[in-house]
Every structure is written in structure tokens, then in C-alpha cells.
């Protein structure tokens, strides 16, 4: 079992991964069960951050900077995604005042 040195104290790596997994599952559950589009977006952000945490964790453990770089990259993409997603949301609210994603189901076959 490997450990990470965080502020002088040794913490087991699996705790970080466990936290990441919990956050990811929280995000996924949020996306699946919540209906407010804004909350869904926030949940997606949560999932991305969970992934970022996992990336950084492995980066520290393996002493390889690639993971951290990738986390930075991921944050950039998340920012862009938030911009686009929020813009779409604003537009939807403007035209139809939908507070429930289930109302947006015109593509049903």
C-alpha cells in the first residue's frame, strides 16, 4: 500500500481514490435523478472534478506530471463546457421557461 505525503502527514492513496469515487457517484446520481437542468450541470461539474482528483492522485503517486497536466486540460474543457451549457440553458429558459428536463422530450421516437 502506498501513501502520499500531504502537509507532512502520510495518507493512504486509497482514501483519495475513495473520495473521488464517492464524488463521481454523487454526480452521476445527481444527473440521473435531478430534473432541474441547472443542478444537472452542477452535477456534471462534480463528476469532472472527481475525475480530476483521481488524475492528480495517480500523478502524485507515480511521480509523473502528465496526470496533473491532464487535470488542467480537463478544467479548461469544463470551463468551456459550462459556458456553452449555460448559454443553452439561458436560451431554453428564454423561449419556454422549462424548469424540468423531462419537458424537453420532443425527440421522442
Amino acid at each position: 500500500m502506498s501513501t502520499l505525503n500531504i502537509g507532512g502527514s502520510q495518507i493512504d492513496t486509497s482514501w483519495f481514490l475513495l473520495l473521488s469515487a464517492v464524488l463521481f457517484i454523487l454526480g452521476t446520481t445527481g444527473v440521473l435523478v435531478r430534473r432541474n437542468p441547472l443542478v444537472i450541470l452542477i452535477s456534471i461539474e462534480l463528476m469532472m472534478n472527481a475525475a480530476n482528483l483521481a488524475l492528480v492522485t495517480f500523478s502524485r503517486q507515480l511521480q509523473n506530471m502528465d496526470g496533473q497536466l491532464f487535470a488542467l486540460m480537463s478544467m479548461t474543457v469544463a470551463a468551456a463546457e459550462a459556458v456553452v451549457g449555460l448559454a443553452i440553458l439561458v436560451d431554453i429558459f428564454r423561449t419556454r421557461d422549462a424548469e424540468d428536463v423531462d419537458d424537453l422530450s420532443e425527440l421522442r421516437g
Partner: protein
Amino acid sequence: MTNQTLALLILLFPVAGAILLAGRGWRLPRIFTVIIGPGVVWASFVCVLALFSGKAHGDFTYWSWIKSGSLDVPFNLLIDNLSIFMCLVITGVGGLIVTYSVGYMEREDDPSYARFFVYMDIFIFSMLLLVLAGNFIFLIVGWAMVGLSSYLLIGFWYQRHSAVVAARKAFVMNVIGDVGMILGTFVLFVNLHAITYSGVFQAVPHTDNGNLELAACLLLVGAVAKSAQLPLHTWLPDAMEGPTPVSALIHAATMVTAGVYLVGRMYPIYDVAVYAHGAVAIIGAVTALFAATIAIVQTDIKRVLAYSTMSQIGYMFLAVGIGAYAAGFFHLLSHAFFKALLFMAAGNVIHAMHDEQDMRKYGGLWGQMRPTSISFLVGSLSLVGVIPFVGFFSKEQILGLAFSKPNDSLALIVWIIGAATALITGFYTGRMWWMSFWGKPSPQRPVEHPHAPSLVMMVPVGILAVLATVGGLLQTRALGSFGPSLVNDFLAPAVGPLRWEGDWSEVVIGLSTMVLATALFLAAMRIRPWSAYVPWAQRMLERKYYFDEIYDASFVRPMDAVAGFALRGIEEPVIDAAVVDTGLLARAGAASLSLTQSGYFRNYVLVFVGGAVVAAVILLLRASS
């Protein structure tokens, strides 16, 4: 201006007029159409006159149209006395008729008015191209375009079902002729390796007769269809659905004589191909008699004139068929005068009677429409062949030449038929004249006091009446070989001189025919209800010898049956079904797949997450094994 430019200008004027009117005519004031429409025809007439007075002749090549291996089709116009003669008839009589239309079509609204003159100018162009063409390709182009403009003009009143049907019938019949023309040209090209007239005629003496007979017969199919001769004649009476000036121009004076022109132009071939040549004479004679008998019972004034036209063209075929080419062309000229006159005078009557064409509903017009009646009488007497009208000189010359042709029993047979036809002509013309103009007004007459025709309609009629009266002075050969013989002399360089000389006996025969025909003309006033005694003949003539019924039963209905079977037996159950079923299959597939699309966001996410979990499980299992 050189002759070469003039010859091209003859063609360019009408086509320019048609383009101008088609593009702008209906948006501009009517006076524009009135000037351009007939004006361009008269401009062409002036060009023809210039060529005529300059004694122009030549084979002018303008540019190469198609060049491929041994096939070299130039765009060339042949100017000789025959084509100038035809152009004079087309632009001269045509100009009078197009001018007449200015008055006749005045009730049309502006777009239709302009459309009419567009079609007329296109027709004049096509007809001029037909007679000026110096090779077979452009002959066929003109030939087909003449058929097209005839189709457009017969169907001019396209709101009438009967006009559309008549136009279609004329077009189909003409296309049968076009096919004959094209096949004939193929035969000539394959055997003689030439496509221009000069090339073909030079090669004729070195070609074997069988091929020439075949080509001549195929060309004859074209001539028969265009000139409404038996057995491809059924379209001409129906073509009377068109406006009356159209009937005068296309279905009397010019287009239907194209067949005569063709045989005359191809005389080097027909002189060699004796069987085809004999067929021309027989077809002409039989058609002349056949059409004249039908004309006896018709009651529609234009249909009587239509059958009379077929009959007179039969005379022309008879003449060119026995080798009296110039006589045939003299009758063409004379017929253009008096038949256009008859049609336009009849047009005056129809115009005044608000489009009523049934002669039984006229009567008594002599007192009320005097100038028109006199013109119609001049035309009628000319048609019957009374001295001194032009019809006498042209018709009796044909009959005289047929009678006096030495050592030719065929000529004698066609003479008998022709003379019998002349007598019947006297009768049906008399019947038409007395019924329409003499006696008391019919109680069913649509108009009590018919209006006099306008000046623009009366002047062309008057000019043609004068021409039909004095035109005979061009050639008085029917009264003996003294006197002028201008048409024969003019055409001799193009179609050869007269091949035999007649004697006094033919003059005697001609005069007695005339006397008998005139007697029948007068008798027609009294013996009108003749048909009550022979009802079966009456019925047969009224049904026009059942030609329409026979064609209907032997061609139209079998074709309809085949087409109906193809529709219901092949098209619908096989081809349509295959196409439709393919479409239905795709639709059903799409419908079943579209069930997976709920439109709910969370369902998609669930599937996505589920997929990711499955993928992760698989990866873990593989890593652990």
C-alpha cells in the same frame, strides 16, 4: 446586298419577329403586335421579291453544321426557281393571311393575341426553312418544325378539349410522316453517301433502283402524312378546330402542300423510281375522289373546305405523280389563292355569326354580306374550275396532261378518277355556296344582322379574289399551247421542262368537264335532299368511310389495351409494388428503432452510465485474469 445575305434574311425576319413577340409582345400595347406580327412576313416577302427580280440562283453554304467522319452537314440554302416560287407563295399568301388575322383574332386578350402571332411567325419560319433547305437534315428540321407549329396553332384554344385532341392527332400523324422522312434520308445516305441535294442528285444515276424505290417510298410516307393524303389524312378535318386564319394558311395554302414540294424537289429520284412515282399518282387520284365524296355531306363549312383541300392536293399529287411537275406547282399556286380566299371569306362569315360553323344555320347571306359573298363565289367558281378563274387553268391543265400522256395507262386511269372528282367538286361546292349564301336566312341563325368585316379583314380577301380571278393569265395552256406559260417556263430549270405536249383533244375534254361541273354547281341549288334516297351512302359518307373508327379499332384501342395491361399488370403490381414496399420496409424499421428514443435526458444518461459500468467490469475482469 448579296443574294447569300438576302436568302438568310428571308429566314431571319420571321424568327426575329417570333422572338420579339414572345419576349415582350404581350406586355406592350397591341399596336406593337399588330405591326411586328405581319410586318416580318412582309419583310421576308420583300427579300424574296428581290431574289426573284434578281433572277438569283445558287447553293449558298453558310457554315458547317456537323462534321464527323464522312458525314458533313453544311448549313446551306438552295436558291433556285422552285424554292423562290414556294417562298413567294408562303410569304405572299402568308402575309395576306397573317394581316387578316389582325382583324380575325381581335377578340383575344393581349397575351393570347401576341401568342397567336408568335406561332404564326414560327410557322412561316419553319415553312421557309423547309423549302429553302439545301440538304436533307434541314429539310427534316423544317418538316418537323412545321408539324410543331401546326400542333401549336390547332391547339391554340387550349381550353377546348376538342382542340387539344385534334392537335394531338395532327401531331401523331405528322410524326409518322417524319419517321418516314428520316428513314428515307438514312437509306439515301447509306447508299449514296451524300446528304446535300446536289450530292444526292449527282449520285442518283450510279445507284441501283431497289434502294431508290425504297427511299422514294419512305419519303412518300412523309409527303402523304404532311399533305393529308390517304391513308394518313384523318388529322386534317379535325385540324379545323384551329382559328380560321390558321386553316387558311397552314391547312390550305402552305403546309399541306409540302408533300407536293417534296416530290417535286426529289424529281430526279422519282423519275428513276417508277413504282414509287406511280404510287404518288394513284394516292393523289384516290384521295381526290375520296375526299370530294365526303365533302358532299359535311355540314360544317370549314370541314367542307378541309375535304376540298385534301381533294385539291390529291390533284397536285396526281400531277407530280405522272411527271407533270410544273402543272402540279401551278395548281399549288392557284389553290393557295382560291382556297385561302375561301377560308378567309368563310372566316368573315364565321366571325359575323359568332363562331357558328354549321352551314345549315346560315342562309341568305348574299343580301347582307355582299362583298364577302362575292369573294366566296369567286373562290367557289375557281374551285369548280370555271373560266376565267385561276382554278380552271390549273386543274384542267393537270387533267389534260394526264389525258394526253402518251403510252401510259396509269395516267389514263388517274385522268378518269380526276375528271369524276371534278364533277363531284362542282356539286359539293355548289351545295356549300347555295346553302350558306342563297335562299332565306335560316331560323336558327345566331345573328339576325351580321356585321360587315373590318377593313383589315376585307382587304386581303379582296386581293386574293382579284388574284383568283386573273391568276389564270399566268398560264393559259389549258386552252391550247398558245398564250403565256409563265409558271412552266419559270419552273423548267428546277423541275425540268414539260415531258410531253398535248393536243386539241385535251382542250375539248377540259372544256366539257368544266361545263358538266358548272352544271352540277347550278344543279346543287335544287337537288339538295338527294341523300334521302340513298341513306346507306349518306351514312357512310357522314362517317367518312369509317376511317376514324377503323384506326380507333386497329391502333388506338389495342394500344390502349396494351398500355392498360402494362399499367395494371406490370406497373402497379411489380414495379410500383417493389418501390413502395422498399419504402414501407425502411419506414417499419425506422419505426421500431425509434421506440428506443424516449426523448428523456436521464434515460440517455442511464444508458451511457450503464455502458460505462459494463465496459469497466469487462476491463477489470480481463485485468484480473
